[in-house]
């Protein structure tokens, strides 16, 4: 049980940090750049992808022994497209504002590399619960990254925070595509720097823990050497 929990923890950490879809694997860039003009849109997009990831991962994992290897990619695409269409219907019915603001990027979730990537690399080879954990945490990693970019772009580009006006100044550059690339690049650089530093610190700590404390060497007995030299 403990080993299982540890494994789920590792999968969760991988999805959030080690294999962060946005900052580390640089997947789903189209939606990241297009939807991150505001924090609310970014958050909505992130959650939508998370739901699709979770559902598609679970279904693909359930069917992994049924789907023949030769048709696995078309089968995955049909499953993902079905989940995205269901999500579209639900959003249009119950959250029309988000549906309107996501526009063309909502159906484009079908071709988001993160979803097909996790289906192919993880869900098609692992049990259902592990696939579900992977779907949730990969999605949450993407949601956090998208929301962060959205917050920065909205604050600098529109002077607001989650739609609430907080500053008078606006830098139009950050609402444009060029601004999106700029913020994305800076975020990737910072993320890599922080994770590298944390990794380095962890390795140093591990090395220190593994190192055997140095014992004082016994005094050298030179009498035998001296005896040889004298003869």
């Amino acid at each position, binding site marked *: 049980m403990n080993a299982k929990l540890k494994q789920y923890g590792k999968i969760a950490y991988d999805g959030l940090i080690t294999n962060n879809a946005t900052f580390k694997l640089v997947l789903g860039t189209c939606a990241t750049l297009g939807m991150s003009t505001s924090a609310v849109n970014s958050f909505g997009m992130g959650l939508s992808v998370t739901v699709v990831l979770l559902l598609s991962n679970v279904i693909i994992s359930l069917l992994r022994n049924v789907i023949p290897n030769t048709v696995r990619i078309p*089968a995955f695409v*049909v499953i993902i497209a079905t989940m995205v*269409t*269901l999500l579209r219907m639900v959003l249009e019915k119950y959250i029309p504002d988000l549906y309107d603001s996501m526009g063309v990027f909502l159906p484009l979730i079908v071709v988001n590399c993160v979803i097909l990537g996790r289906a192919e690399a993880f869900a098609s080879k692992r049990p259902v619960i592990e696939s579900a954990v992977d779907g949730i945490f990969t999605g949450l990693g993407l949601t956090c990254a998208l929301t962060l970019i959205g917050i920065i772009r909205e604050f600098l580009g529109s002077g607001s925070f989650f739609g609430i006006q907080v500053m008078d100044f606006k830098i139009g550059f950050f*609402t444009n595509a060029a601004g999106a690339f700029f913020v994305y690049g800076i975020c990737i650089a910072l993320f890599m720097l922080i994770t590298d530093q944390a990794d380095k610190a962890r390795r140093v700590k591990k090395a220190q823990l593994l190192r055997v404390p140095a014992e004082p060497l016994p005094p050298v007995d030179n009498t035998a050497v001296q005896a040889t030299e004298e003869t």
Partner: protein
Amino acid sequence: MTVKQFFKSNAFKSLAVLILIVLVAGALLAIFNDLLYVSDEERLSRSLAKIYGTEVTAEELELTEEERTYAYGSVNAVYFVEDDGNYLFQTTGTGGYGSGGTVTLWTIVACTGTAEAGDLTLTGIEKVVYDSNNGQTFISNLNDDFYAAFAQQDELVAGGGYFTAVTNGTDDLNNIVAGASKSSNAACNAVNTALACFRTVFMGGAA
């Protein structure tokens, strides 16, 4: 390959599984489409609630094809709002970025009098709300201030004028946003279409 061999082959199994997945997915979508269907009436009431902030009663008015088309763009729908006596237009303005670039807006045209009594007078624009666009990459640059500016020019509207996506030299008119001039132009044309339709069809004048 015999028929028996075909039915035992991997190719058949692959095909059967794929067809089965497609059929199940199709059935699932059909069921959910029925459960989550959004009717035209629901769409309209949502749009009206978004524009007015509260639920209002509106009657759709019939227009001929000729009455729908203007130099600035076209009228998609027009409603008489029973709560305040104003007219609500959904219009698509041409002249946006790229070939065929358009902006679709909702425009509330404020007026006094009634068409039946023949004393209908245009007093201004009450509100302009964004609806959708075609091919306008920088549409998000058109912020709330841009749309609010249409409602602050009653003199121009009551005087029979139209909006242009240029500054007038004094920066009084804010009908253009730098970096999105083509989208601004299409948005102005969408509002102008509503004005032209109101003046021609309901006031009985010339556009």
